[in-house]
């Protein structure tokens, strides 16, 4: 277990270095990166001054080393539009994004497992066909379009759900104000339900299919037949015997899904004017606020890598055969 952990940690560090390298290269690809940091009508002297101040006149490897050194300390430079450290701007909106991502993950996984199992147990019947058709379509809908349609129908036409806004839950929680946090929770979920469904539908559809095929495979195994032949109730066979092994591919997927969901959240947030990292990135793109984009992307990548590390650890615990 410990050697596995150490190796995974080392891998994660290598990946992180790769991530910083990629983001550094992306900065250099458009030519002299100084132009990304000065206003369009800056004079030649101003550009030169900015170049020296930002260190873009130094050799590339020195630039990269200082970039990585600064990034490790969370220093991505000052945001061009907020006039404060980019990382602070990003961290301020992070809790809202984590709330939304987590909520849609719970929603998607929570629904996909029973749907997938139900479809597998009713293989070939109309209900199976129905669930799989739904899953097929769900995998083909752009999440942001789903958001737009929900705003039009559930928000503007039926007036069931709010079409924008956010009630913080994690923020008061982090500040130690538990009463406010839990008071906010129901309203927070109410505001998040439409964006969460929009983000989570793809994951729900994909995982329902995955759970189904994984379950079908396990149900054909000898040990399941043995359990059945011993006269154990079907319910027990499914829950205690089959599901244990059907879990494994699903758990692996959850780690990867989180990354997809984060990517989806970034897009969907802009639809619902949800005050998270997605809207921040969207605005930063339009204002060409490079430090904020860089800080956001790297921070999200770090979260993604950490989560995958955790998922691998859970995986190792769930399946004693896995000694990666």
């Amino acid at each position, binding site marked *: 277990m410990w050697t596995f952990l150490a190796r995974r940690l080392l891998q994660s560090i290598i990946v992180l270095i790769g991530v910083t390298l990629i983001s550094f290269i992306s900065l250099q690809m458009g030519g002299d990166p100084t132009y990304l940091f000065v206003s369009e009508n800056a004079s030649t002297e101003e550009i030169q001054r900015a170049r020296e101040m930002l260190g873009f006149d130094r050799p590339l490897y020195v630039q990269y080393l200082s970039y990585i050194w600064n990034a490790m300390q969370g220093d991505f430079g000052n945001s061009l539009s907020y006039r404060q450290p980019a990382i602070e701007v990003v961290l301020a909106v992070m809790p809202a994004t984590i709330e939304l991502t987590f909520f849609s993950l719970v929603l998607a996984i929570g629904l996909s497992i029973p749907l997938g199992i139900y479809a597998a147990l009713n293989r070939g019947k109309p209900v199976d066909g129905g669930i799989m058709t739904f899953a*097929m379509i769900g995998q083909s809908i752009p999440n*942001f379009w789903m958001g737009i349609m929900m705003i039009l129908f559930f928000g503007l036409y039926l007036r069931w759900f709010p079409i924008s806004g956010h009630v913080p839950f994690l923020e008061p929680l982090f500040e130690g104000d538990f009463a406010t946090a839990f008071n906010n929770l129901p309203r927070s979920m109410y505001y998040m339900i439409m964006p969460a469904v929009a983000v989570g539908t793809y994951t729900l559809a994909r995982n329902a299919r995955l759970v189904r095929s994984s379950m079908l495979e396990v149900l054909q195994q000898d040990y399941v037949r043995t359990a059945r032949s011993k006269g154990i109730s079907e319910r027990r066979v499914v829950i205690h015997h089959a599901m244990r092994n059907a879990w494994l591919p699903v758990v692996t997927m959850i780690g990867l899904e989180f990354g997809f969901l984060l990517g989806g959240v*970034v897009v969907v947030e802009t639809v619902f004017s949800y005050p998270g990292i997605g809207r921040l990135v969207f605005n930063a793109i339009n204002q060409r606020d*490079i430090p904020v984009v860089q800080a956001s992307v790297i921070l999200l990548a770090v979260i993604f890598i950490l989560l995958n590390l955790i998922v691998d650890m859970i995986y190792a615990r769930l399946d004693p055969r896995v000694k990666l």
Partner: protein
Amino acid sequence: MANNTPDQGEAIVQATNANATSYRRKEMWRALESLVTSRWALVGMLILFIVTFVAIFGPQLAPFDPNRQNIMMRLLEPGEAGAGDLTYWLGSDQLGRDVFSRLLYGARVSLLVGVAAIAVGGTIGIIAGLVSGYYGGWIDDVIMRLGDIQLAFPFILLAIMFLVVLGPGLVNIILVLGIGQWITYARIVRAQTLSLREKEYVEAARAMGDSTFSILFRTILPNIIAPLTVIASFNVAGVILSEAALSFLGLGVPPDVPTWGSMLSESRDHLLSNKWWMSLFPGLAIIFTVLAFNIIGDWLRDFLDPRLKENG
């Protein structure tokens, strides 16, 4: 083989070719049959055919110039008659442009980006995978670790980062989306190459003094192309979705090129005034196209490897 006269060798080659042709013909029939019997796949093919047709003949089919603005005809509802005797079948947008015509033109970009990005990613991935699997050693390590790093990144973030610096544009988006896919192909090709490398016919090619290039591309590659088509089909679907998302964020192609994603992006400003047609139709176009590729991918997978069949 060594004792064969050149004539005999020729005869063997001809016989093998004849066999291969008849085998190929048989497989084509099997494909056609399976396509017709699985109704879903037929629906997918039909949608794909329509989208391709529209992408090619869009300019001939479109009643309006997709970029012609007409302030007098702003935000017309679907079916309203416009200037002259032309009807805005799917309504008009905030600049008085015909939604239907823009939709037809948009098919071009979606298909072009989807297919071109897969061509870019597939080519890089196949070469990387072949080299990685055939040579092994440090080259293999470097290529696969590069892939790991890329996979550790939610892809859309990577695309955002590059496109913000490079600026939007058709070529840029194809390159970024293509490069985003290479590792998928590289991994599969590598795994297959590893096992094929030891096969007799590869060894025979080597013994006959074929160049490494010829072994990789003429002997090994044709034998691993089948699983790649499955991945490619799903991938085109994914790439079309990504393109729509990036266009929606304003990172796609320039504004004068109508795309489904950018149409959705523009529709957002008119959401609250309930101009639903601006967002409904481009979205449906995306869904049907992506659905078609997903269905065909499913069918191809079942057809090429019936053991994997999900619906059994």
